[in-house]
């Protein structure tokens, strides 16, 4: 690969859950970095353009450079010597790697959890309680004449969400695009996103549940107390008008973000929203979607679900999967000081978990897989440098609406993929544990 630059069409950006697949990447003639990322948003551009293959060692053991084989051996030893090994992260890697991670947890009788538990885990729990009505993003692009965002700021977190999926697109059913849609926002403060809204409800912090509950009562025609005006800061007149609009639309959608799911009330907030949308289906077609963050967090949910039956927070201590958020979710397992080994794949709990959890991380052997050094990898017993998915590594990722896509990597990396490292560790664990495997290695 020398001389001319290479162009990758329809490349896939995994920076956020939008997983835009219309990026045109230009790779420099040396095949070492990306010079252009056409169609990408500001976040996507920096994701692609700032990605450089740096001169890190492939692995560190106790902070000292080590070969891949040595590191795999060291990691396998950490794992097999643990009584409660916990694997965490997985939202920024391919489904192929995620599968290997679940296999390791299974063969170790360990614990596995993804970043879902700290973002839309509450949504998952709410969904288990009350169900949902949802749609793939194209249906929203095509049909949604009422679009509402609750507790999120897509303009900044998912810059192309409006343009590609929900606000601007013109379609057979909505030939005038945004003009044919009503855009509503609910948030505790004006944001970049709320500027484009036809309707903006600025609610008092911590009153989402009450507002959703009052809206449900309005939809269902049930009694409720006017005090909700005072509690939420939204007048009943406005609320009634809004609910009427929601019932009257042809196809409504309610997107929601972590402003709803990670504030007090958590899974109940999400559940209230999902139930509101379900209630609205007695009048019209209405769907909801969490605006999920990381590139392949939705894939992690899917892989863990199909392999174990449960979406996140899965424990194999007894030889079969068990699920219990709060009990087997990583922040809790570490916060209570329960895990005795931790493997982090493409995540950095060392920088964002509670002080208690971080203190515990420092007290146990940690294995990290990440393209770059992280706060967590500073404490790692074994730290692998891996290639970046989507840029260097092929594989499958899921968009926030559960639509899977095959990655189109731009150039090779000298580093192994997460999948390769994890498979090597898995195979070594099986050897050490005497687990014979007939699984043929899967061709990439």
């Amino acid at each position, binding site marked *: 690969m020398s001389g001319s630059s290479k162009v990758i069409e329809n490349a896939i950006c995994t920076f956020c859950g939008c997983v835009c697949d219309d990026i045109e990447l230009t790779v420099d003639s040396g095949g070492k970095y990306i010079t252009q990322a056409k169609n990408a948003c500001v976040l996507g551009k920096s994701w692609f353009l700032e990605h450089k293959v740096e001169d890190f060692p492939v692995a560190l053991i106790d902070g000292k450079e080590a070969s891949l084989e040595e590191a795999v051996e060291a990691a396998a030893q950490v794992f097999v010597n643990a009584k409660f090994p916990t694997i965490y992260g997985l939202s920024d890697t391919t489904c192929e790697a995620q599968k290997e991670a679940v296999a390791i947890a299974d063969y170790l009788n360990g614990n596995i959890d993804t970043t879902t538990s700290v973002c839309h885990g509450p949504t998952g729990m709410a969904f288990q*309680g009350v169900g949902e009505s949802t749609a793939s993003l194209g249906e929203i692009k095509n049909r949604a004449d009422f679009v509402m965002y609750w507790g999120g700021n897509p303009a900044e977190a998912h810059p192309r969400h409006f343009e590609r999926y929900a606000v601007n697109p013109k379609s057979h059913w909505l030939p005038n695009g945004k003009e044919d849609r009503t855009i509503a926002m609910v948030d505790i403060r004006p944001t970049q996103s709320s500027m484009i809204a036809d309707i903006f409800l600025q609610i008092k912090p911590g009153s989402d549940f009450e507002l959703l*509950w009052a809206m449900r009562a309005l939809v269902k025609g049930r009694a*409720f*107390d006017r005090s909700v005006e005072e509690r939420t800061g939204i007048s009943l007149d406005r609320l009634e008008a809004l609910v009427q609009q929601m019932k009257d639309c042809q196809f409504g959608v309610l997107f929601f973000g972590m402003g709803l799911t990670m504030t007090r009330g958590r899974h109940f907030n999400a559940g209230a929203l999902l139930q509101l949308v379900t209630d609205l289906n007695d009048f019209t077609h209405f769907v909801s979607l969490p605006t999920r963050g990381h590139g392949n967090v939705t894939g992690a949910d899917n892989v863990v679900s199909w392999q174990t039956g449960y979406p996140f927070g899965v424990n194999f201590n007894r030889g079969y999967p068990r699920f219990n*958020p709060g009990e087997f979710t990583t922040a809790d397992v570490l916060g209570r000081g329960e895990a005795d080994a931790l493997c982090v794949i493409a995540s950095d709990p060392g920088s964002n978990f509670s002080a208690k959890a971080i203190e515990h991380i420092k007290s146990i052997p940690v294995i990290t897989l990440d393209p770059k050094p992280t706060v967590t990898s500073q404490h790692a017993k074994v730290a692998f440098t891996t290639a970046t998915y989507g840029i260097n590594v092929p594989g499958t990722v899921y968009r926030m609406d559960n639509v899977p896509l095959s990655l189109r990597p731009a150039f090779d990396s000298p580093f192994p993929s997460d999948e390769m490292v994890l498979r090597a560790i898995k195979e070594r664990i099986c050897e050490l544990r005497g687990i014979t495997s007939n699984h043929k290695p899967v061709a990439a």
Partner: protein
Amino acid sequence: MKLSLHTLPTVPLEAEVICPDKFIGNSLDAISAMTVMHGNQACSLADFFTLTDDGLETIEVDGDLSKVKLIGSEMTQGKIIIKGSVGAHLGALMTGGEILVTGNAEDWVGREISGGRIVIKGDAGHLVGSGVRGSDTGIQGGEIIIHGNAKNEVGNGMRRGLIVIGGNSGDFTGVNMKAGTIMVLGQLGQRPGASMVRGTIFSTQSAQLLPTFTYNTTYKPTFLKRYLIYIKKLGFTIDDAYLNGKYQSWSGDSLELNKGEILLFAE
């Protein structure tokens, strides 16, 4: 039978074998050899506990058991006394018998029980007397008595039975309740009774209720006095003011059947 913790577990210890039903008819040796799961390692009870046969059927357990889960799980009879604090899922799926804990308990005390009585002298974690995620059914009977505070989701999905919290309860007390009684002698957290269908939530303090609850009256509910006297006999100190006082009665959740009630002390 007396058990005394001699080795602190380093990771969660799952010890559903500590249960009268499992011990009955077994020798000390057989009981000592019963399997507990220390993380992913199968160990014996004796690896963690010193066992002494005092000839009594009551099981007495000593030590810091806050990492020991599932004690008394599926218990149908007899008594367990825990001198200290205890881990999650205490008495899960219990149908009879009694468990007494002198210290605190972690989450999921009395998950899905349908009978028996659990008494915690200290505080309890989240989801006291609740069902599992995804299920709409919590406890179906029995009594859970917490003398201290409890965290969120007390009695989630509760269908029958009595839960008493001597101190404060967390958010969403009695959420999704189908029936039964939750008595909180302290302050209710946010949004009590959300989605409740039937049942009673009581508190000696005022509380901010959801908009889908409507005020009925302030009166002296006879049945409540019956309940207060009942729990007084269980060892709670109940002020005469509460025994003879008036309570605000609220109905909800109007999004469901609107047959639930919240009673808040008024005067």
